[in-house]
């Protein structure tokens, strides 16, 4: 080990790495096994979804938005349709709001269990990973019973939802709640009582409260640092307005905040219980009524064509705040523009802080600890095949190009 010689070596983690679910590169400056600096270089999975969306009407974009990310697909479409509803001033029926809430929480359960399993896999605890995957099957089955699909549900639409919770589905959901209340504790105990799991996660990738504020961390990442940040609590939407939701922070359960990977693990696992409770409440208070504001699609499209305005919505996705902004212009079928800001975009900024003075062995775990969704995040990369360069456009360059284009469009 060359530790202490003050000479660092560059080690790339990624873009393709066994421990990472999606392509992202972290160039680490390591001294022996110790990380002295880190550069994050995204840009390997940009797909230009926002550009594609400009040739489509809002209903078509729902299916595009769903494919931004496989795990938080419903979070993305709810954020999107809420932005459209905001722009076009559409009222959503109460029953549809409750069903959206239930599906959002089901998705949160599925996302958090998946994450917990993958975190265990990252430090070689394959048995816990397999246990997590087995547990996750149950919620996937429920989602399939409710929507017909396991991943991209195709359930949300502008002004409501397309699938109802029938009595049969209600029974399946209640069964699932009982199942998790009995079985999920095993997984929780297996990981939190395991000495090696604790040794691998405690005091690793620490993000202090101050840094979390300074670098705008979101979702479970910031809650793991002990800050009470949760849009379901601070700015409730859909059926969350009717419920009493408290942000899950580690100090309420263990008495102290470390802000490390273990705290983030704890927050996510405890949020699964919180989600179960929310689903239970939503099922109990499920109002009757319409599912959609306007069931006839041509009529809805015609209304959206007339609508003119800018819509904004921000919801608490499993990984943090998911913000969508949209512009509709009256008389045009297609949207004018659409902007997605996924939580990983904010959380990724705090990676270099978390890496500092940790070990090379921890790096995939730290990357995974914010539950990154790279395909959600990536919005801009410019490659030039002819010269073989693949550089990321800087902010100032981007602003300059935007201004150029505006000037061109305005014909000056």
């Amino acid at each position, binding site marked *: *080990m060359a530790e202490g010689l003050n000479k660092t070596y560059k*080690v790339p983690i990624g873009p393709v790495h066994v*421990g990472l679910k999606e392509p992202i590169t972290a160039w680490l400056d390591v001294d022996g096994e110790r990380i002295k600096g880190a550069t994050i270089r995204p840009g390997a999975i940009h797909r230009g979804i926002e550009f594609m969306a400009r040739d489509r009407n809002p209903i078509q974009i729902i299916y595009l938005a769903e494919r931004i990310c496989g795990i938080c697909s419903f979070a993305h479409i709810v954020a999107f349709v809420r932005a459209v509803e905001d722009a076009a001033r559409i009222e959503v029926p109460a029953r549809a709001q409750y069903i959206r809430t239930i599906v959002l929480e089901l998705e949160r359960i599925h996302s958090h269990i998946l994450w917990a399993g993958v975190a265990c896999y990252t430090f070689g605890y394959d048995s816990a990973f397999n246990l997590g995957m087995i547990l996750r099957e149950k919620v996937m089955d429920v989602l399939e019973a409710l929507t017909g699909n396991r991943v991209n549900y195709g359930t949300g639409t502008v002004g409501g939802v397309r699938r109802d919770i029938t009595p049969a589905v209600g029974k399946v959901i209640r069964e699932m709640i009982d199942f998790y209340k009995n079985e999920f504790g095993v997984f929780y105990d297996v990981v939190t009582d395991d000495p090696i799991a604790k040794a*691998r996660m405690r005091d690793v990738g620490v993000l202090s409260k101050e840094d979390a504020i300074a670098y705008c961390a979101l979702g479970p990442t910031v809650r793991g640092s002990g800050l009470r940040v949760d849009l379901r609590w601070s700015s409730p939407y859909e059926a969350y307005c009717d419920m009493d939701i408290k942000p899950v922070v580690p100090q309420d359960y263990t008495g102290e905040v470390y802000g490390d990977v273990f705290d983030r693990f704890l927050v996510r696992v405890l949020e699964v219980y919180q989600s179960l409770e929310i689903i239970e409440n939503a099922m109990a208070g499920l109002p009757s009524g319409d599912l959609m504001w306007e069931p006839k699609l041509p009529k809805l499209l015609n209304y959206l064509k007339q609508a003119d305005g800018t819509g904004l919505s921000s919801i608490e996705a499993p990984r943090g705040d998911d913000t969508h902004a949209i512009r509709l212009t009256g008389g045009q079928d297609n949207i004018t523009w659409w902007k997605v800001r996924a939580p990983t975009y904010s959380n990724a900024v705090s990676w270099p802080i978390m890496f500092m003075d940790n070990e090379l062995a921890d*790096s*995939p775990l730290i990357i995974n600890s914010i539950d990154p969704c790279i395909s959600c995040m990536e919005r801009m990369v410019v490659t030039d095949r002819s010269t073989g360069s693949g550089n990321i456009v800087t902010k100032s360059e981007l602003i300059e190009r935007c201004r150029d284009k505006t000037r061109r469009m305005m014909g000056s």
Partner: protein
Amino acid sequence: MTLLHFKLIAGVALLFFASLLSLVFEGVDRIIHARMQLRLGPPLFQPFFDILKLLGKENIVPRRAIPWAFNGAPWVSATAALMILLYIPMGSLPPILAGSGDLILILYLLGLSAVAMAVGGFASGSTYANVGAQREMTLMMSYELPLAVVIVSLAWFAYRTGMPGEPFSLETFVGMPLWSVVGWTGVFGLLCLLVALMAVVPAEVGKVPMDIAEAKTEILEGLICEYSGRNLAMFKIAFSLRTLVMCAVVVSLFFPWTIGRHFGLQGSLLFLADFIFFWVKVFLMQIIGVTTVRTAFGRYKIWQASQFYWFHIAGLSLAGMVLLSLDVVL
């Protein structure tokens, strides 16, 4: 037919048999590991299919590698692991090379096999392989102390109590089970040494929680990161052989009992029964010492593993040494 010819034939046959057996054991290990995780697991002969496929694949040498060291390391590693089998008594059969090698040689061959892997890693010219090789060396330095303490205490005990045979020879321990020699303090001492030796096994064979040098989710298989084709096949064989050998050493030291005499068997039937029983014991040892452990735990970081061996396990083996000495002195 001279004795030399006989030894040559028997040696080659044994090495061939043991290599195949190690792969079968690995297949069973993978199935049991999978079943404990509620998975179905691969077919029993999957390790064979893997090796056969790898043997037919192209051998890629990275541009920045040192070819002779890179290509030589897998062969040295596998050969060293294979050689150990010639020095292990199996049941009532004496080792093929009886009298020309003892426990110290076995330890050195195990060490050589691990060092050859590290050399291959350093010669790969890859950052990940380099990190893996450094970790392998660090890990070796950590587990050698408890391992040496265990072996030395047993040898010293055999010497002081006047057990028949050379104190460092495995045959001594196979000929007379240690448990029948020690008093009650010695039993605790032996238990400490047994646990210490079992704790060294995962590190010696490179399995979870001590697969730090080959951590795939951290450094992409580390040591063997750049290997492919025939070379990788040799490394795979070396890994499964080391598992087999390490378990065989534990069995020979601590569980040397045979069953042939209890059933009143005679001649070649006795040798056959004891031979089979020996491999059954090795198999059970592998299930307990490797498969269960790798299912039950996650992976340590390198400094945590070092700490574990230097303090906890070394302490345990020293306690065993003290108890065993007390047994002799009292």
